[in-house]
């Protein structure tokens, strides 16, 4: 923590009303940040008739029936499984290929490699959803329409830009001496990479994993066009299926929303520590 930002004399810190006011504001904003989420959770615990009468009112009756119904009749178990498969799959693939590539980029002075780095970074500015039609035709040619594998590969490719961006920064910060030492011990490039370098960039990997997991988990656009069978649908698509068929059953819909969002919250809480460490380390050069 930087002392430059500390308010000066320690004694004056604790009790000033200004400070208390700011702390209050911080917590007030925290409530504001969580409000819609709370609304969603509360909505999922109320019976649908209550919701229709009084959508944002104070709950009186609480029930878990909505979740049961969403999971079973609503097929959310299946959607959940698909989401897990597609999202985790693509994150794993991206992390593997991007870490390999980033290491090479960080450690190589070749012009070609630098060109590749620029290429990957340009991916950050590519609005992929605009290319939905060519992607569809590509999938047709590769026989990947209505395949979860195809979707996974697409997502994995889309994550390369950001992953490279973060990982190259981290790799560049690691001292070259580490590899030199490993080489002296007789290790080859790959072993050095796997056993020494990768563990050192764990915070970066965690960051990349989370920042890729969330948007892919929540994406509705590509599964829309590229998947056809219901049994392949991930959660966001399943949600609409559900809304279409059970239009006025808002309560179960909310339960579906909660099922869709809670895993992300869990993942995020787990990974937060790593991410903060990662970003902080990255910034302070």
């Amino acid at each position, binding site marked *: 923590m*930087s*002392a*430059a*930002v*500390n308010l*000066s004399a320690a004694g004056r810190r604790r009790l000033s009303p200004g400070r208390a006011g*700011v*702390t209050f504001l*911080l917590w007030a*904003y925290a409530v504001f*940040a*969580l*409000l*819609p989420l709370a*609304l*969603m959770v509360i909505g999922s615990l109320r019976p649908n008739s209550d919701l229709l009468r009084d959508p*944002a*009112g104070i709950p009186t009756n609480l029930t878990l029936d909505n979740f049961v119904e969403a999971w079973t009749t609503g097929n959310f178990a299946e959607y959940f499984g698909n989401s897990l498969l597609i999202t985790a799959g693509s994150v794993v693939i991206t992390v593997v*290929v*991007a870490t390999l*590539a980033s*290491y*090479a980029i960080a*450690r*190589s002075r070749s012009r*070609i490699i630098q060109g*590749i780095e620029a*290429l*990957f970074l340009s*991916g*950050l*500015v*590519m*609005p*992929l*959803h*605009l*290319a939905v*039609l*060519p*992607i569809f035709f*590509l999938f047709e040619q590769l026989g990947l329409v209505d395949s979860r594998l195809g979707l996974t*590969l697409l997502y*994995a*490719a*889309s994550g*390369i830009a950001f992953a*490279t961006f973060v990982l190259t920064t981290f790799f560049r910060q690691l001292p070259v001496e580490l590899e030199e030492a490993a080489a002296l011990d007789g290790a080859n490039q790959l072993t050095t990479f796997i056993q020494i370098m990768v563990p050192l960039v764990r915070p970066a990997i965690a960051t990349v994993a989370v920042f890729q997991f*969330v948007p892919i988990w*929540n994406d*509705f656009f590509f599964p829309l066009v590229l998947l056809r069978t219901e049994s392949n649908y991930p959660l*966001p698509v399943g949600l609409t299926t559900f809304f279409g068929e059970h239009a006025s059953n808002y309560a179960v819909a909310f339960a579906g929303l909660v099922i869709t*969002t809670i895993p992300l919250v869990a993942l*995020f809480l787990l990974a937060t520590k790593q991410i*903060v460490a990662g*970003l*902080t380390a990255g*910034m*302070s*050069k």
Partner: protein
Amino acid sequence: MRRRTALLFTAPALLLFAVFILYPMFTMFSYAFFSWAGTARGGFVGLDNFVTLFTRAPFTTDLPRAAMNNLTFFIGLMVFQNSIGIGIAYALQSRPRIRQSLQTIYATPYLIGPIIVGYLWSLLLSPVFGPVNSALRALGLDSLAVAWLGEPSTAPWVVIGVSVWQWIGFPVLLYGAAFGGIPAELGEAARMDGATNRQVFFRVTLPLLMPAVGTMTVLTFIFAMEVFALPYAFGGSTGSPAGSIDFVSLLFYRVAFGSGATDAIGNASALAVLLFLVIFGGAFAATRLLRRYESRLVG
């Protein structure tokens, strides 16, 4: 690292990237140069589709308006997310015990999918059923209980506000880390010279934060130019009400899939190319400026 090894290491990523990103993007760009009948491609037409973007309806009315909206969105985001983000990050620096929890809480809206966000906020702000207006009325602030998403003057602010709400975690984290990277001695030295806390903040800390602000600017610019899901969730593909939250990507979607024009794909692709050039050009220029500023700072 030897070049051959490096190439081997980058090969898998390169292959994946080339097949699923580069190829479709280039194909999409090429679409802009052909005529189209539905989804059947016709002959080469050069820059005709681009000319259409500047001469024919709906582009002559909708494109400038949408572009203005994207720009306002960008400026709004920069102002609010930077001021609030820096403010919060600064306040959190001196509260180490609650920092972790608050940072996590502030970041949770990011986890909610944009469609869900759009739905939840529409519900909260509904003039008929929403609690926000009821609460405002209960507090005696009747004049503020307007149709937030129904007025062209307030709807864009809702989109900006909800975007900031959704993404604030990132600037807070980034600026927090940036604050952490400022050496203590600088502030100490200034204070010893008699500078007040306020002066330290504005004259010492803030300038050193500029690289982080720069990064934030580039990323925000890209986001603001591409934004689709949130305005779609609030205003549909037309940017209702009255096109006040119409953005370029909504226009693209509307033209490509929503109109009766049979040559839609050609025009939509031309629009996509234009958008890409703007984003790429803007990001490139901003990054160059940033590098130059950074080197001036260091050197």
